[in-house]
């Protein structure tokens, strides 16, 4: 279960890495010199790093071996 979850997480992280790279690439290459592009980039990258670390920390705290599938209480 843990292995499957880790593989899934890797796929998710790869997709997000591609999306983050896309945004950074566009803002760095096509931003108008002298405007607020650098500030926007810093905010975006900081947020992405925070979310990345949060994902890893939460993932490591999930009890993969003791996971219960929720059922509707009758």
């Amino acid at each position, binding site marked *: 279960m843990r292995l499957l979850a880790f593989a899934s997480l890797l796929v998710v992280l790869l997709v997000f890495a591609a999306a983050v790279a896309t*945004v950074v690439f*566009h803002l760095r290459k096509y931003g108008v010199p002298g405007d607020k592009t650098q500030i*926007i980039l810093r905010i975006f990258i900081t947020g*992405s790093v925070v979310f990345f670390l949060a994902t890893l920390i939460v993932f490591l705290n999930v009890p993969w071996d003791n*996971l219960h599938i929720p059922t509707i209480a009758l």
Partner: protein
Amino acid sequence: MIVLHDTEKVVATHRKTWFVFLFTGITSFLMMLAPFVLYAIMRAALDPLITALSFHLLLLFAVIWWWGIWTSTFIAFSNYYLDVLVVTDERVLHIDQHGPFSRTVSELRLSRIQDVSIEQHGLLPTLIHFGDIHIQTAGEAPNFRFTSVPYPTNVKEVIMQAHRAALARRHTPGEHEPDV
């Protein structure tokens, strides 16, 4: 990337009004709240013990969801922020970002401008002061249209002043327009 000629100077840079991005921003904010709503529903419907054991799993999904909203919001913001109208002392540049890896860059020499008109229709554009700018050109060059510009009257004046200055330089003895 905007590449200026050797002696070219940027006169003004204009982007679309913030109002254009407002709907996307509000939608993103509401979608960020979705995990809280779902968790409240699940707590009411499921056994609390089971919910507690799966809390970290739910939190993981929530964090991934929030990250997805964060990234997609910034992709949408990039599309908004990279739509630019740049007025230099030689030309008008219109950069239209359609989406990731999709953009149109149009360029118009100031001396080829024949007419600049603005359009403001509706209550919100009038109250928030935004509208569309149409630049009509000489010859067969396509006309420019830049939508949702804040204070279009001021932008029109900037373009017309740059146009007049370009024409004055063109008719000054010894001066000529740089070759493209």
